[in-house]
């Protein structure tokens, strides 16, 4: 289902592009979005606990309500 969802989304994006008829602007916009996402991920990488595997393994809770 994830695959068909993705291809649906791709199809929708392609349609949008055709309607807008502005491929250069669109790809520039996409590049801008990509670099925004990259910088967000980089920032998040800086605050993530180091050694994800150890950290996640050690997070064990007693049950509650």
């Amino acid at each position, binding site marked *: *289902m*994830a695959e068909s*969802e993705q291809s649906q989304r791709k199809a*929708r994006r392609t349609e949008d592009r055709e309607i807008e008829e502005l491929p250069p602007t669109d790809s520039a916009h996409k590049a801008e979005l990509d670099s925004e*996402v*990259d910088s*967000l*991920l980089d*920032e*998040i*990488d*800086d*605050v*993530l*606990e*180091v*050694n*994800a*595997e*150890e*950290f*996640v*393994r*050690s*997070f*064990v*809770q*007693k*049950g*509650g*309500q």
Partner: protein
Amino acid sequence: MSSADEDGSVPPPMDPAARRHARVMGIETEYGISALAAGSPAIAGGTGAAYIEDDLHPMQLSNHVVKAYGNSSAGQPAGWDYETETPLRDIRGYEISRSAAHPDQLTDSDLGMANVILTNGARLYVDHAHPEYSGPEVTSALDAVRYDKAGDAVMAIAAQRATQSLGRSVRLYKNNTDGKGASYGTHENYLLQRSTPFDRIVTQFTAFLVSRQVITGAGRVGIGQASQQAGFQISQRADFFEAEVGLETTLNRPIINTRDEPHADASRHRRLHVITGDANLSEIATYLKVGTAAWVLRVIEAGELGRDLRLDAPVAAMRAVSHDLTCREPLYLQEGRRTSALDLQEAYLEACRDHYERVAEDLSENMRIEAKDLFGRWQDCLDALRTDIFSLAEQLDWVAKLKLMESYRERDGLSWDAPKLALIDLQYADVDPRRSLYQALLAKGRMRRLVTDDEIERARTHPPEDTRAYFRGRMMEKFGSSVVAASWDSVIFDVPDRPALQRLPLLDPLRGTKAQVGQVIEDSATVSDLFAALGR
């Protein structure tokens, strides 16, 4: 107001029309808790050494956290009045002197566990090995958001103070599972009329709780109670529900909880204890969570839902909805008709709109404004979930988390069982703003807001003004050293020169408001003045 009325509680009642339509509610959250012993790397940039698990029992650790906050200015340690219906002389544990209420000698009788009543009317205490913040009673969804976020702020401060006092890094998480089989709750409470048949709540509210996950889900990495299967699901809690109706909250959890402890006049009220919800970081998710539930309950109480919308297999549906990221999984009603989470939510929304048209003229201006805003946002969410789920990434927790994780999956080629994704899931909910990924998104303008930081800070220290929480909170703020115990529906004082402790019942959640008692509290320099002014 100059004298107490015959039942001894704080007078006078509010305008009858407003009272009829006011809905009293509140949110309580158990936070996940852990501590890293000295030697563990604090955060990224540390040594990279293994994390050293702490040997403190989580109950002790939670106790430290609550005490650490209780010793600050916004709260006062006080006992909890467990027996709200009996006269003072019959209550165990209240022969204590005021000196016993010293912060280091907490007066609670519950195994010595810390219990703090905050100046905002909330209760901060230890419940089931987790620190819990039970927000004050409110009457609007927006206030529920303010006081829920205030709870996060309380926990952030508590974690920092406990870290300082213990010399170990204490982490608190606003989530509902460790991904290894344990779950802890975020409960909502709605005051209902006793006259509403409980069976009607069961038959008409269950499908709402099952379907609302598409809006209220906080997102979770892992499928199954112990994450037996890799993947992402909409809700933190869904996999932990095993029954349709029941009394338990920790085992065999039911979708509809039957605990009947109204904390109010039991002949008139019932408190519906909703235990299915996720802990939300998103303000909009919390707003929709309590706002839509309160309106659906109005409709059900009025007997205007029309048809029952009974699901054929609610427990299975609870999981099916959570596991389906397209929100299109078919669900079946008992009558045989096929439906979906979105169709069900649409049906409830329509019923709320119809009911609103019938009662709008009796509502206050503020109630009307909030109702219209709620319905608009609710509709927008349902429309977006049908067309472009990721357009809700700035509004709903599960979509925000999913989008972030999909970006990581794409960049780093991660599969769903990658520890980094489980860490992102966990750290999204860290209450410390320096580590919280929710806060990181907020700081980048990637989560929309409904309230400001200033409003949250005010809500951390000031009570809501339109419920009895106002009286409770102001008592803690102004006369905290004279309060020996309190509960949702009472405050017990040690008044100088009076031989016995004085108990003020607050059985009506809509009495004790600022309009009713604000001036008399303002005018009372001492607790003796207050009691004189109340005619007691």
